[in-house]
């Protein structure tokens, strides 16, 4: 291997590495987010949401949180329809 070839390869690798590690990836980086807990009160009457009253509408004023019918999913089940 001649010195010229070595230099050519090394310079190519250096540039490639630079390109691969510094360019922006599509969609950006993945931010490291911690686990968190949140709650959503009824935006209409301000009441809290009770689990046994179902997920789709407010147990107090009838406001629709979601205009859909829940099916059997992973954690959410049909029974969770209000």
């Amino acid at each position, binding site marked *: 291997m001649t010195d010229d070839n070595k230099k050519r390869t090394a310079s190519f690798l250096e540039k490639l590495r630079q390109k691969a590690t510094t360019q922006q990836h599509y969609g950006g980086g993945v931010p490291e987010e911690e686990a*968190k807990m949140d709650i959503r009160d009824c935006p209409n009457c301000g009441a809290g949401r009770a689990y046994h009253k179902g997920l789709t509408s407010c147990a107090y004023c009838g406001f629709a949180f979601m205009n859909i019918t829940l099916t059997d999913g992973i954690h959410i089940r049909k029974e969770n329809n209000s």
Partner: protein
Amino acid sequence: MFDFFKKKYSNPELLAELQSRQQRWFVFLDRLEARMEELTDAGIPELQQVFKEDTDPYKRSHYHMLLGLMGQFNNMRDKANEVKEENIISFIYSAEAALPPVTSPAGSEYYRYVHDFRMACLDRYHLFDDRLNEALEALRHAAGEQDLESAYQQELAAFEKIKDQFTCKQCGGNITIPKMFFIDTYIPCPFCQSQNTFSPSTAARMVLHNARELAEQRTAELRRAYESSRPQDPVLYKKYLRAMFDEWNRIVPDMAGENEKFYQRLLEEYTFNHYK
């Protein structure tokens, strides 16, 4: 006039050209192979380091560097193909077109020279192609596998630490997260029954994303046993597949129901393809 046909055909220029052309072709491929080796030797440690330092959970820096390196090998393949078409294959056609009929003794002799040239050049090309594929394979595997097992164990430990640290946003009561969740999930407060929403950490979400790959890593030996069996043994395939899905389900138990349906499909397809 019959003397004309009796005169023995002789073409020393063609023989010399075949010889020198073959030699140039060999030297050209030797040089490409030397460059391939140089790039592989220098590239592998670089790839390994970039992989190690890549903090992106999808290892995208490493991925793009790998593709960029492989691109150079493909460039060398294109180059060899181009020379093969223009200087070997086309040459063979034009040389053959100028030969006496293959049915004549001289024609048959010269056709054999050209045929030998063709075989030598193509054999050398196939050797080059094999070596190039080996180099690509070496680059692909250079960084090794991501250590998903450690990441998973770390996440299990992290979950044990945080699972009791949440309180109800409504009444302030303590909420224990009953199990590891991988997506946003409704959790009722045990005191006031209010509907809270738990959002798992990025690292916990990645467990779901990597679950199959981790299960594959855990059952790699069974897979290899199947893949190296000759003829391929369906019993070994089924053993591997069941074990892989068992591991998968163990990592993300919430997905077991869905995973089983996928398992059934793979099993049916395998049986169909194997016995058809």
